């Protein structure tokens, strides 16, 4: 039986790993070499967060699973990340908008988590908040450049926003697992962050001359293990060597 703290930590770790993995797919293929470096940087931040969180999740669980057991030996249904982070890189505009949406949520989220009751999560969050501040700044600057650039870059960026918008609702959902932890001051209530998220986003979109999509249906389920088709492909690459050589150390 999973404890709420284990599940909560795993969700945060999975978000970080899967988004970090996605960003790492860009390296060598970015539109300018400076972006190879920047995307790698953000990927490194996120995978670093994932490692700390997996290690903690393993301790909380107490069954001897380390970061690699959790990252490499769970099936698709065992992964608890939000659907947003597993969405394909698409063109550069999709990657930048995905990063903007995630960071505009995660930055205030980690700020709040850094003040929460669990010392380990708070310590991870205190480091992550600085990293996410950079992710937010970087993706906001690019969104503005692309949105207010050429007609083509504007169209691509608006399309990315329209495509990805449906995945933002899941960021603010809570379930029973989280409710118990929120009541004890361990978890952050994401609903309380929504105004800040929207305000920050609206500032960026206004400068980028982009339109925030109207409401619409929210795609969710990732946090409960119901994923898109994309995650299976991510995991089959990510986990390939651990699956092909069971028990080997690398």
């Amino acid at each position, binding site marked *: 039986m999973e404890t709420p703290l284990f599940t909560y930590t795993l969700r945060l770790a999975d978000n970080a790993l899967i988004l970090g993995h996605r960003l790492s797919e860009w390296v060598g293929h970015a539109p300018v070499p400076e972006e190879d470096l920047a995307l*790698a940087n953000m990927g490194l931040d996120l995978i670093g967060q994932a490692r700390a969180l997996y290690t903690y999740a393993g301790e909380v669980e107490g069954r001897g699973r380390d970061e690699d057991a959790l990252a490499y030996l769970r099936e698709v249904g065992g992964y608890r990340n939000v659907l947003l982070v597993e969405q394909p890189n698409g063109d550069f505009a999709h990657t930048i908008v995905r990063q903007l949406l995630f960071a505009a949520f995660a930055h205030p989220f980690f700020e709040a988590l850094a003040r929460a009751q669990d010392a380990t999560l708070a310590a991870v969050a205190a480091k992550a908040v600085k990293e996410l501040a950079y992710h937010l700044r970087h993706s906001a600057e690019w969104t503005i450049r692309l949105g207010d650039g050429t007609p083509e870059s504007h169209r691509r960026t608006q399309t990315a926003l329209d495509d990805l918008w449906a995945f933002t609702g899941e960021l603010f959902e809570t379930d029973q697992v989280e409710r118990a932890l929120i009541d004890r001051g361990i978890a952050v209530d994401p609903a309380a962050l929504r105004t800040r998220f929207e305000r920050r986003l609206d500032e960026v979109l206004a400068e980028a001359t982009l339109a925030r999509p109207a409401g619409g249906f929210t795609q969710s389920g990732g946090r409960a293990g119901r994923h898109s088709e994309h995650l299976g492909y991510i995991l089959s690459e990510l986990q390939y*060597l651990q699956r092909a050589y069971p028990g080997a150390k690398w």
Partner: protein
Amino acid sequence: MYTQALNVKDTALPAADPQREARFQARIDAEEKIEPNDWMPDGYRQTLVRQIAQHAHSEIVGMHPEGNWITRAPSLKRKVALLAKVQDEGGHGLYLYSAAETLGVSREELVEQLLDGRQKYSSIFNYPTMTWADVGVIGWLVDGAAIMNQIPLCRCSFGPYARAMIRICKEESFHQRQGYEIMVALCRDGTPAQKAMAQDALNRWWWPVLMMFGPSDQDSQHTDKSMRWKIKRFTNDELRRKFVDATVPQGRYLGLTFPDPDLKFDETTGHWAFGAIDWSEFRRVVSGDGPCNRQRLRQRKRAHERGAWVRAAVLAHAAKRRAREQAAAGVAAE
């Protein structure tokens, strides 16, 4: 090597200026650093542009073979290390393009010359990374060979290149240790299957790595002049021999066999003697028919072409910004 450009013939040079050249040579002989604004012979400038550009291109193209394993790295620790390593190589590329720009060429021109095939990158990156062990072997041997070549370049007569090399060499030696550590995990602490993977990688990479140092001295066209200008301090064969001497004991510690039946320690010279290099393979790969030449160039071209709309957006946005600032300044002035 990353600097195999040194082995290509110069194009015609303008008339010489013997007095200035003598003064220039005297400065070099006195181990003074030449800086971008100093007078220099055209041949010196050409050689450096070609060498630094090729070095930069090698760093950038070199992201591909190892980048190929980032998403499949076998542990989170290895994934982070590899991602950071490939990122370092990209950083080296940018840093070297800046060093080349001090000689009056733009990065855009150089990239164009890479993409249309006028400039080369190190041929070692035209070999495929088939298994995870290739990542270990590249760090151990390819970064190892690069260091062997680049340590002397830290004393290169051209200041910006020498300074770039000092910084880059520190990171390359970190990469080399990291690669060797992957090999130790596979060979000394690994399963028989992992060790076999490592042996197979060494078998495929050993000879191409030896070729990285370039043609043997009697066939190298540029060594004399580059040595006189102190761009190059050791000949290809000297560097190759140093590399073999340093590497063979490391391979033996791993319990690996080098794919060279003639490799043996020569008591009289104190060096490892090795078999004949197949220079026809080297020439074939340099001239475009290696296993991945077309693939690597296509990867670079595709990234460049797919980035075109992004670069256009950056320019358009900057122009809009400037126009708005000027309009605002105009209003303020009235």
